[in-house]
Every structure is written in structure tokens, then in C-alpha cells.
């Protein structure tokens, strides 16, 4: 913590003693000494600014105001103003330091070193010198420096700095680890998959640092306001002296004293610092909760959310398919599943993966041949001398295979052998446990409309929507249809913004079309981070309502600061022209207001509860 400079204390002592010494030459000397002691750096800075043709700088204005006061014989005023200004600046710097510290602490996810394995030894190196494929060792208590895959070891990871989630995540051999997490329990040997500059931690830091560049409307307003405010107030100060004295022949020193107050409050610092700081703090606070906001402007848009459009799979549902039932005609269930798993052995489709995962029996693919991928239907293949079809109802219809009537919710995979129906396997996706709460929290946060867009069958989507309490459901959509729906809703919207939430996979066009595109479950996925405006690091949809509340709070604080600073300054200007202020009040309106506004701004960082 920086200390109040001694010269300021000394100057204050001189000033106070001067007030009690009636002998004028002595008190004058003390005043001047006090003034020089406390103000020399301001005067020097002002001089340097003038030398560079840079008027209207804060130092310059303070110098003019106090020298003006000295010239009209207001010695105590001049010293008091300079003293108060310096003390105010000191507290303002303290507040600023505090803010910078809080921001730095928040962004303290940067790893200092990596333990690199080299020629059988472990050496500590800077993370940015490690290459892809290198092996690093992460001990308990250490921060994972680079993204990678665990070669050896099991542990629990604290991901809270990235996701805001306090529950540790388990990681086992073969699992992926993300830089920035803290290794809690076991030693991990990790094969590095990304260089430092491409790692998650570097991406997050870059994103947060640059987020302040996308300015909000209030920030743009402040910048424009600041540009005209100082010259106008200075001009007004000149007129305030010139008109009464030249036109009405009134006392010069009286009007000069009033005009000096104008100069003191003519710096727009309180606004110029506190408003961007509010948004920067808001972005920082959000990132602490695992919400990455790519620009202050998105906070502004998010605060005005009217409609939230959800993608279904992976957003409100787990996005992981499970085999929920097996309905064979004649074969035992396990055999039907084994057959399906064999035929789907080489398919990368998530449904095929879930079938393979569910199958417990050994698979022999020796005679598997002639596999043809029938896009949108399924596949056909030859196996053990038979011709098989595996796929959806449309595939069965295409080959005129008669199906027994069976009503299921979920995806159904049928099997047929040489044109004869064998049975089907039902697969479904589970709704996330937190999804219903997430939708309810949005309604509570004042979101008028919730919409579900899904590529799934209508009955499945309808059921999901109904379970979760979503107002409108549109199903069986292709990616292009989703864009159309979003455009239609945008057109219907009166005011407010449309937020689209997807998992960041295959929905880049929709993310781009919405006012605010939110990608979730993006823990380590580059594609999603690229496409979205806001990224939710974990896959908890409740974070959206938290993000909206946080955005609203940030905006409210920014508005408070604008109103507070402008009101106080306007008040001082009005009172000063009426001769009702002292110079020190003007100093308070300048530095005091800045300090209060900074402290108010920094509330965006801390007070937000992390659990949402």
C-alpha cells in the first residue's frame, strides 16, 4: 500500500501553522512554502503538457486555478485546493490500485512454469517454451500450465478459476486436461497438445484483456462527452469572468474566484475512468464465474434480453446418447445389440458410438464388408454372408421392410437381415438436471419469451419443451431452418435483444445471426469460442440467467456513476456561478467523486455470488 507522501503532510503542517500566525510576512512565507511543497510536481507536469501544446490537462487546470487564487490574494484557498487535490489524487490512486489488484487477482490464472521431462530429468521451464508432444509433470497443488492429455496418473482438478464451479473434476489416464486448472490430489504426467499461446489459459486472458475494446454505448457517450466537456467548461469560466467585469464593470476578483471553481471541476476524469472500469470489472467478474464475455457491448445487449432461443441437444440435454431399450423380434437382446455394434463398428456417428459403448459382448469384424454409408438414413453392409441394413424408419421404408407399430420417444435404430426385420434399438438423450431451473431462472430474470429449436423429431422436442416449461418449440429443423426461425423472431421483437444458446457445434450461423450468441459447454473447444459472443465455460445452462443478472448489475452501476458524477459537477457549476461555493467543494467534486465512482465501479468484480 502506498503511503501519503511526506511532503503533503509537511505542507499541511505549514498550512495549518500559517492559519494561526497573524504576522503577514511570516504566514505568507509559510503559505508559499506549503504551496510549493505540495504543488511543484503539478506545476512541472502542467508546464510539460503546455510545452507539448497539450492544454486542458488536469494538471494545467489545477495550476491555473491555484495560481489565479494566489494572484487575487486568496493564499489559504490556493494552498487548500492544491492540498485537497493531492490528497484526493492519493485516495483516487489507492482506489485505482485496489481495482487493478482485484483485476490482476482475478486474472491470476497464468502459469509461471512448467515441469518439462527432458532426457530423463524434470526441469522447470517457462510454459511458452514447451512444444506440442512434450511431456510435462504436474504435481499436486500446481496449476496445469498447458493443455494436454494425461499419460499417467489420476487426480482431481480444481476448475473454479475457469468455470466458477467449485466441485472438483476427476481426471484419469487418457483424459484431457485444460491449462489454468489446479491439480489437487495426484501427480499427472501430461503430453502437451497445445502450445502456450494456443492454450485455454492464454486464450481466456487474451479474451478478457481485449473485451474492453468493444465499447458500449455509454462508453462511447462518455468519450464524446469528455472531448467537448473540458473546452466548454473552460470557455464558460472565461466568459464568467469577462462578461460581468467587462460588460457590467463588476469586481474582477469576485468573478475570478467563481470561475476558478469551473476550472477545477472541468476534468471529466470521474466518468472517463469509472464507466469503462465498471464494464471491465463486469467482464472480469463474469469470467470468474466461468462466463467469458467477448466485449463490454455484449453485456449491454445481454442486459436487455427479451427472448432466449435454445438449441436442444447438448444445451438443455446432455448431448450424450444412451441405449434405453432393445426390442428384438427373435434374437436375444444382447445378440441384436452385438450385431448392431458390429455393423456400426466404423461409424463415427454419435448414435453408433452409443451403441458400441452399450454392447458388452466381443465383436468380430472379420467378415464385415461392403459397408455403404447412406447419409441421413443409416448404412448397409455384408456380414457372415448376409446383407444387413441398419438405420432409421425412412431406410426401412425405402427397402419396403414392414415394421411393427411401436411408439417410442427417442431415436430408433432398426435392423434388417436380407430384407427381413430383426428389431430395433431405442436411443435417447437425457435432459440436464439443471435445465428446468435454468429456464425458470430466466423467467425470474424478466426474460419474456423462451424458444426451443431442435433438429429432433417433433414429439421428442415437444416433450423436452413441455418438461422444461419452454413457451415455443420448433422441431425437425435443419441448421438453415434455425437461422430462419431466429430471423423471424428477431423481426417480431419490439425492443430488447435475442439471445441464442447453443453448444457451439454446427450452429455458428445461428450464433452469428442472434443479437448475442452464447456457446456453452465450451470447456476447451476452440470452435465454440470463435463463433460465440459469450462463452459459458462449463455446460450448466443456469449460467445464462446469472450472466443476464450480472450484465444488468454492471449496467446499473455504470448508470449510477454517470448520473452521480454529472449531478455533482452540474451542481458545483451552478452554485459556483452564483458564488455559493468555496474552491475546496469544487476539488471534492473533482477528485472525491472520481474516488467514489471508482469504488462503486469495482463492486462489479467481487460481490457476485459464485454459485448463481
Amino acid at each position, binding site marked *: 500500500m502506498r503511503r501519503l507522501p511526506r511532503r503533503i503532510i509537511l505542507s499541511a503542517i505549514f498550512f495549518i501553522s500559517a492559519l494561526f500566525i497573524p504576522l503577514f510576512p511570516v504566514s505568507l512565507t509559510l503559505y508559499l512554502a506549503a504551496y510549493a511543497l505540495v504543488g511543484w510536481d503539478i506545476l512541472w507536469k502542467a508546464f510539460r503538457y503546455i510545452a*507539448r501544446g*497539450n492544454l486542458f490537462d488536469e494538471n494545467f487546470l489545477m495550476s491555473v486555478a491555484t495560481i489565479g487564487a494566489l494572484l487575487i490574494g486568496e493564499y489559504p484557498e490556493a494552498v487548500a485546493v492544491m492540498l485537497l487535490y493531492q490528497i484526493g489524487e492519493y485516495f483516487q490512486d489507492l482506489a*485505482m490500485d485496489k481495482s487493478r489488484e482485484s*483485476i490482476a487477482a482475478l486474472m491470476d490464472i497464468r502459469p509461471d512454469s512448467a515441469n518439462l521431462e527432458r532426457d530423463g530429468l524434470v526441469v522447470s521451464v517457462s510454459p511458452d517454451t514447451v512444444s506440442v508432444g512434450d511431456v510435462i509433470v504436474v504435481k499436486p497443488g500446481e496449476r496445469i500450465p498447458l493443455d494436454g492429455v494425461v499419460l499417467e496418473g489420476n487426480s482431481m482438478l480444481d476448475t473454479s478459476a475457469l468455470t466458477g464451479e467449485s466441485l472438483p473434476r476427476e481426471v484419469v489416464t487418457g483424459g484431457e486436461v485444460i491449462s489454468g486448472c489446479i491439480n489437487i490430489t495426484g501427480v499427472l504426467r501430461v503430453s502437451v497438445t497445445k502450445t502456450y499461446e494456443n492454450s485455454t489459459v492464454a486464450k481466456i486472458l487474451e479474451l478478457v*484483456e481485449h473485451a474492453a475494446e468493444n465499447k458500449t454505448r455509454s462508453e462511447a457517450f462518455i468519450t464524446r462527452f469528455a472531448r467537448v466537456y473540458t473546452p466548454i467548461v473552460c470557455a464558460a469560466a472565461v466568459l464568467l469572468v469577462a462578461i460581468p467585469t467587462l460588460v457590467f464593470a463588476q469586481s474582477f476578483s469576485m468573478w475570478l474566484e467563481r470561475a476558478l471553481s469551473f476550472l477545477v471541476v472541468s476534468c471529466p476524469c470521474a466518468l472517463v*475512468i469509472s464507466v469503462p472500469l465498471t464494464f471491465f470489472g463486469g467482464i472480469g467478474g463474469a469470467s470468474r464465474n466461468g462466463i467469458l464475455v467477448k466485449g463490454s457491448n455484449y453485456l449491454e445487449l445481454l442486459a436487455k434480453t427479451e427472448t432466449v432461443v435454445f438449441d436442444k441437444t447438448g444445451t438443455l440435454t446432455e448431448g450424450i446418447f444412451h441405449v434405453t431399450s432393445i426390442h428384438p423380434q427373435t434374437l436375444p437382446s444382447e445378440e441384436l445389440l452385438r450385431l448392431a455394434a458390429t455393423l456400426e463398428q466404423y461409424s463415427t456417428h454419435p448414435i453408433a458410438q452409443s451403441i458400441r459403448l452399450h454392447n458388452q459382448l466381443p465383436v468380430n469384424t472379420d467378415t464385415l464388408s461392403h459397408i455403404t454409408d447412406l447419409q441421413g438414413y443409416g448404412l448397409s453392409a455384408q456380414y457372415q454372408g448376409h446383407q444387413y441394413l441398419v438405420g432409421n424408419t425412412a431406410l426401412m421404408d425405402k427397402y419396403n421392410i414392414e415394421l411393427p407399430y411401436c411408439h417410442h420417444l427417442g431415436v430408433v435404430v432398426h435392423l434388417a437381415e436380407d430384407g427381413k426385420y430383426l428389431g430395433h434399438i431405442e436411443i435417447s438423450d437425457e435432459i440436464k438436471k439443471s435445465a428446468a431451473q435454468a429456464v425458470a431462472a430466466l423467467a425470474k430474470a424478466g426474460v419474456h419469451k423462451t424458444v426451443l429449436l431442435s433438429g429432433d423429431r417433433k414429439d421428442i422436442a415437444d416433450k423436452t419443451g413441455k418438461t422444461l416449461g419452454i413457451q415455443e418449440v420448433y422441431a425437425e429443423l435443419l441448421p438453415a431452418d434455425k437461422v430462419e426461425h431466429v430471423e423471424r423472431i428477431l423481426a417480431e421483437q419490439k425492443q430488447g435483444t435475442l439471445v441464442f444458446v447453443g453448444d457451439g457445434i454446427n450452429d455458428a450461423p445461428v450464433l452469428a445471426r442472434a443479437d448475442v450468441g452464447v456457446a456453452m459447454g465450451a470447456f476447451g473447444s476452440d470452435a465454440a469460442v470463435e463463433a460465440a459472443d459469450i462463452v459459458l465455460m462449463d455446460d450448466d445452462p443456469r449460467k445464462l440467467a446469472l450472466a443476464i443478472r450480472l450484465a444488468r448489475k454492471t449496467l446499473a452501476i455504470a448508470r449510477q456513476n454517470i448520473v452521480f458524477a454529472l449531478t455533482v459537477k452540474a451542481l458545483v457549476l451552478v452554485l459556483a456561478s452564483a458564488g455559493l461555493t468555496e474552491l475546496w467543494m469544487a476539488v471534492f467534486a473533482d477528485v472525491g467523486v472520481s474516488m467514489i465512482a471508482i469504488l462503486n465501479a469495482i463492486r462489479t468484480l467481487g460481490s457476485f455470488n459464485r454459485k448463481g
Partner: protein
Amino acid sequence: MKKTFTISELDCAACANALETKLSTITGVTSAKINFFLKKLYLEADDAEFDFIMKRVRRAVDHAVPGATLK
């Protein structure tokens, strides 16, 4: 070329705004962004005349914030 600098003694937000505008107008500078809270300058400029551009950037920085240095 993209480079990040720390501007010392950057303690006036209005100056930072003015400096940002000024730097953006320098020929050859494609983008100049200042993060006042981190005292950082993110500069993007043409590779060809980078040294020459940097001279002008330094001059502008000194003009806006007397005594400031770029690191």
C-alpha cells in the same frame, strides 16, 4: 506485426483515450488499442516500416503522457 507494450505513468484515462485516437491516425498503424486499467497498448502495424512507425508512436506517447515510456 502485432505487439503489446506497457505504458508507464499512464494515470489519466482521458489521456489514454486521446492517445488511442491519435495513434490510430498514424500512417501504417492498422490498429491501436489501449487498456487503461492494465496500462497496456496493443499495437498492430505494417511490417515493412515498423521501426519508422514505432518512432512516430513513441513521439505520440510522449506527447500525450509526458515522461511515459513504452516497454
